[in-house]
Each structure stands twice: as structure tokens, then as C-alpha cells.
């Protein structure tokens, strides 16, 4: 398929190509490493695809070109104290821990020394050089499923990356927490956090990504996580995002699901100036479950865009999607939930709900459920509501002695709590609630 790329996009891509070439020159001996070949191919793919233009329907409400046209230097790491890592994470949660500061792994603050049997966590290079996992890495990083310009950009520029392998039948004993911390100062940086997670047959694992800013500053986080959920396996994938209010985040999460597998995504978006989530699940066989839960709070001039795509290609699969958010001030929210039910996907159960509270005259929410159903024996439902806070409820709470602010905050909390109830890890749920409380004031 020939894709016409406008000149503006081509010029921006050329800027990244230059950056890529300069970086590659500095690699010396590593230049011909197969992983570098994969990166170079990704850079080539980015040139083919180009960055989305304003007229691109999928990016209608979120003008991403304004992000990538800025100049960002590559993150080179930074020094932080243990207390910062703790504030960014879950001190009370026993987890395998990986801490990245400005895109670079901080080994001292990380803890992956005593992995249980059946669990492997490494950087991408190590995983590639291991004969047992080489093919998995290669397949994941060259997979065209869910591919877009930002996935290609991530693949071309990712630093060390995180590779997670869960062997057949392994129930991972504690969550894997990947903490991404950004310290701003000097030139604006970009980071490309990358996760490849392989959950083999009948295994179960929870991966928690967090994004935390030490200070306010402009930077660009372009992350990619690819999960391959094996037969009868279950991957719980969390993202708690609290980037700086001037930061940009594009988050790409792509799951491929084998027979009888479950992929559950839990997303909380609080930070960022412009945030775009591209979440997709590609069902490879029947009997699968896909659960997508999301909460977003946009205040000030924040813009949070959630795009999801579930491709029901096989019969007897279930998907369940619940996104709720609050938009205040001049904030803007976007939800686009695509569910594709192909002709063969009989007995599909697909449920989707998006509800938003819009609290000011200048706040905007655009919601678009997009179900395309080609099978005839399915149960599919979708709902989208946009509303304001219920005045009667506020009055009721105030007659019980609560101030207007208390009443409003309690109702906003209650509105999104329904989604957080689905978070399976208590410490993560508690943290999410506390982060929300901070933001709601």
C-alpha cells in the first residue's frame, strides 16, 4: 500500500533519521549487531509510514506532530536518591523492581537479583543473545500488528529495554514494577521505554509501569510494551502515569493473545500536557478474555487521548472495556474505542463503556465508540455518557456538614472509583487512589 506522506511529516522524520545515523556511528563494533539491524529496519519503517497528519482520522483530536517536531535530546540518565525512587513507587509493595532514570537503568535502585524459577528479566540485548529467547525478541520487535509511527520510533530508539519471560505454568510470585522517572533540567529529552513480555502457557504475571516526574519540565516519553499472552496465560498490565504537567507521553501497548488467555490492562492517567495511549489487543484464537480499564483526569490545559482497538478474529472471545474520566478547566479528553468483530468471531461478548464528567464550560470531551460487527451471533454493547456533577448529590452531602469542595471531591472520587475497584493489586489500587486524591485536592 502506498502511503502519501506530506512534506511536513517527511521533514520531521528526516530529523530523527539524522539523529539515528549519528547515534549508530558512535556504536563502532555494535553497529552490525542483529538488534541494531532491527532498530535500523524500524527507522526505515518510520520513513515509510511517516508521522500522522492532522487529517488522519485516528489523530483527529490529537495533533501529535506538534510533539515530534520539537527537538529532544536522548535521555542520558541522571542521579536520584533512594527517597525519590520510593516516592515514585510502592514502598509497601514487595516487587521485582527496575528503576529507569531519564531512560537509563539505575542498577543500584533496581532489584531483580533473586528471581523465582521460571522468571527471566533482562535487557533486550541479553535476551537476544540468548539462543532460547532470540526468536521471541526478534518476532516481538518486528511484529506488524499494532504498528504505527510511534511504535517504529520506539523500536528504533529504545535504550536497553526490558525483556520479561515467564515459563510455562509459572505463576510469578510478585509483581514486576518498572519505574520510569524523569528529572528535567537543561535540554528537553526524549525517552523510549520498551517492554517485551512473553507469558508462556498457563502462566500468570503482573507488570506495573509507573511514570513519575521529579520536577516540572518539558520532555517526551514514547513507550512501547508488547505482550504475548500464551495459551491459558494471564497478563495483568498496569500503567500509573503522573508525568510532568509540561511533558508529552505517547504510550503504545500491544497484546497478542493465544487461546484461552487473558490480558487485563489497568491505566491511570493524571500527568502530562499531551497524552496519547494506543492500546490494542489482537486475538489469535478462541476463548480469550480482554479487560481494559482506564481512568483519566485532565485539568489546566491537559489533553488525554485514549485509543483502544480489540480485534475479535475468533469465536467465543470476551472483551470488557470500562473507561471513566474527569475533565476540568481547559482540559480535553478523547476516547475512541474500536472493537472489530470479524465474520468468524461468533459468540463474541464485547462490552464497552466510557463515561466522563465535564466540569467547566471550557473543558471538552470527545468520545467515539466504534464497533464494527460482521458476525451475526454476538453480544455487543457500548455506552458513552458525558455529564456534569449531580447538584442534588452535592446538596445532600453538604446538608451532612461537608463543604462544597469536600462534596465535589467525594463525588469525583466516587465516579472513577468504580474503575479502580477492578485493580487487582491492593497496593497499586491504594497508590492510584492516593495519587487521585492529590490531584483532586
Amino acid at each position: 500500500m502506498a502511503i502519501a506522506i506530506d512534506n511536513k511529516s517527511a521533514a520531521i522524520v528526516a530529523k530523527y533519521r539524522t539523529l539515528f545515523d549519528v547515534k549508530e556511528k558512535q556504536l563502532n563494533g555494535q553497529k552490525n549487531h542483529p538488534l541494531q539491524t532491527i532498530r535500523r529496519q524500524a527507522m526505515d519503517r518510520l520513513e515509510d509510514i511517516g508521522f500522522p497528519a492532522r487529517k488522519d482520522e485516528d489523530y483527529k483530536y490529537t495533533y501529535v506532530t506538534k510533539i515530534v517536531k520539537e527537538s529532544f535530546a536522548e535521555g542520558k540518565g541522571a542521579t536520584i536518591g533512594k527517597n525519590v525512587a520510593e516516592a515514585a513507587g510502592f514502598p509497601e509493595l514487595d516487587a521485582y523492581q527496575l528503576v529507569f532514570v531519564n531512560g537509563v537503568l539505575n542498577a543500584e535502585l533496581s532489584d531483580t537479583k533473586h528471581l523465582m524459577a521460571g522468571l527471566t528479566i533482562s535487557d533486550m540485548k541479553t535476551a537476544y543473545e540468548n539462543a532460547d529467547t532470540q526468536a521471541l525478541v526478534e518476532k516481538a520487535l518486528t511484529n506488524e500488528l499494532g504498528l504505527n509511527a510511534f511504535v517504529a520510533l520506539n523500536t528504533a530508539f529504545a535504550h536497553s529495554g526490558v525483556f520479561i519471560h515467564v515459563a510455562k505454568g509459572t505463576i510469578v510470585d510478585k509483581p514486576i514494577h518498572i519505574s520510569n522517572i524523569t528529572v528535567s533540567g537543561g535540554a528537553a529529552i526524549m525517552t523510549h521505554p520498551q517492554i517485551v513480555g512473553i507469558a508462556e502457557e498457563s502462566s500468570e504475571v503482573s507488570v506495573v509501569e509507573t511514570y513519575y516526574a521529579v520536577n516540572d519540565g518539558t520532555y517526551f516519553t514514547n513507550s512501547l510494551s508488547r505482550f504475548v499472552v500464551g495459551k491459558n496465560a494471564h497478563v495483568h498490565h498496569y500503567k500509573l502515569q503522573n508525568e510532568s504537567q509540561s511533558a508529552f507521553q505517547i504510550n503504545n501497548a500491544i497484546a497478542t493473545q493465544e487461546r484461552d488467555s487473558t490480558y487485563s490492562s489497568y491505566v491511570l492517567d493524571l500527568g502530562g500536557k499531551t497524552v496519547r495511549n494506543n492500546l490494542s489487543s489482537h486475538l489469535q484464537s478462541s476463548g480469550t478474555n480482554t479487560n481494559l480499564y482506564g481512568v483519566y483526569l485532565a485539568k489546566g490545559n491537559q489533553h488525554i487521548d485514549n485509543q483502544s482497538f480489540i480485534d475479535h478474529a475468533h469465536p467465543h472471545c470476551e472483551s470488557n472495556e470500562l473507561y471513566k474520566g474527569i475533565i476540568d478547566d481547559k482540559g480535553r479528553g478523547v476516547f475512541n474505542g474500536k472493537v472489530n468483530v470479524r465474520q468468524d468471531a461468533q459468540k463474541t461478548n464485547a462490552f464497552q463503556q466510557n463515561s466522563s464528567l465535564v466540569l467547566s464550560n471550557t473543558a471538552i470531551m470527545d468520545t467515539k465508540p466504534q464497533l464494527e460487527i460482521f458476525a451475526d451471533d454476538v453480544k455487543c454493547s457500548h455506552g458513552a455518557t458525558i455529564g456534569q456533577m449531580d447538584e442534588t448529590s452535592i446538596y445532600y452531602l453538604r446538608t451532612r456538614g461537608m463543604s462544597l469542595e469536600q462534596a465535589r471531591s467525594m463525588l469525583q472520587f466516587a465516579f472513577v472509583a468504580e474503575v479502580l475497584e477492578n485493580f487487582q493489586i491492593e497496593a497499586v489500587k491504594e497508590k492510584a487512589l492516593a495519587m487521585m486524591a492529590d490531584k483532586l485536592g
Partner: protein
Amino acid sequence: MLKIKDLKVSVEDKEILRGINLDIKPGEIHAIMGPNGSGKSTLSHVLAGKDDYEVDSGSIEFCGEDLLDMEIDERAIAGIFLAFQYPVEIPGVSNANFLKSMVNSVRKARGEEEMNAMEMLKYLKAKTKLVELDQALLKRSLNEGFSGGEKKRNEMLQMAVLEPKLGILDETDSGLDIDALRIVANAVNQLRTKDRSFLIVTHYQRLLDYIVPDFVHVLYNGQIVKTGDKNLALELEKRGYDWIKEEVDGVSA
């Protein structure tokens, strides 16, 4: 305690209360009865401070303060409690958390010490017993999926924990079965003290079999047209409201 003088209130330019005078002293129980549309609920909500009403003239003094000058929550903190005719369902707010934050925010505002978790647990347990409410309802979302009787008992529970100076029951008895009615009445009787007063707004006399009022007022067309003791309620039960209307309107049947 509560002095209402010549209170005139309208909603969207329609006059609902047309000169109410009422004086409630500490420890008294007043019942306000009247046909539908007479302004009973309006009076309750004006006392609680609901925004939709326009007070055209008159004054309300509560414990020496100008009630009309106070915000909704300030009134609650000062000691006004309104039990709603239709308690609001709030999904996502657990009943227990709601009660806890309510008690502590009011205690704080009243200059009292906030309760710790243990004290709170004991306090809520005792109050829950008073209104014979199933403890399991504390864990549920506020009023969500509660039966009519459970909602009203939950209102009584909130009243019990907030310990108001004046409890206003806005048709709390409407639609209740006899067991729930008895529990509501029992809660009021137990909370009755020489300093705490009640204003019981009702359409039916039945509740007054269980809560003996000191005064019964008949509200009709936005005015108190008759005041008596508990026997007035019995007469209304026997004869209905038509004779009052006839007396006031001067029309014979």
C-alpha cells in the same frame, strides 16, 4: 431555638410559602401536617439551605444566629439536620466512609476533637444498633440499592451520629411499613433530649402514634392555618384535610 417570622419563599416566581410564623423551643417536638402541595417540603429545604428557593421576605433565627445568612454546610455544623424524603443514592461512596468523614468534618468544624479509627468504630456500632440497621449496609455504597425502609433508617443513622440540635424529618414516614415506621419513631424518641428539638413534616397521622408531638400545625397554601396539640392530628386523620380547606377558603362542600 428556631424562630421563623413571616417567611415568604418562592420558586421561579411562584410563591410557595406565604408568611410562615413558627417558634420551636429546646426539647419540643413540632409536627407539620398538610395536604400535598401545601409547601411542607419547601419549608424543610429552606431550613436546610437548598439553593433553588428565593426567600422574598421574613427571617429565620436559629440559636440566636441568622440562619438565612449561613451556607448549607454551616447550618449542618450549627446543628440543623434534614432527613430527606428521597435520600440520594451515591454509587462509589461507601456508607461507612461517608459516615466517618461526615462525623469528623463536623466535629472538626464544631471545634471538637476528631475520632480515631477505634473510637469511630465503637461510635458507629452503637448508633447503628439504635436504628436497627444491618451492619452489612455500612459496607455498601451510600443508599445504592437500599430498600425504602433501609434508606430512611440510614437517614436516622446519619442524624444519630451528627447529634443535631434540630432534627427535621421530611415525610420520613411516607411509604414505610409498620416495622420500619416503629424503628424511625424509636430513633427519634431515643434521641429526644431536653435540648434537642424535632420538626416532623408528615402527610399522615400514623407516625404521631409513636412520636408524641407537643404541637401540631396545619400547613395549607403556604401558611400555617391551624395549630393544636396531638388531638388535632387525630382529627385530621378522621376527617381528612377537606374541612380545613373549606374553613380557609370559605367554600362549603
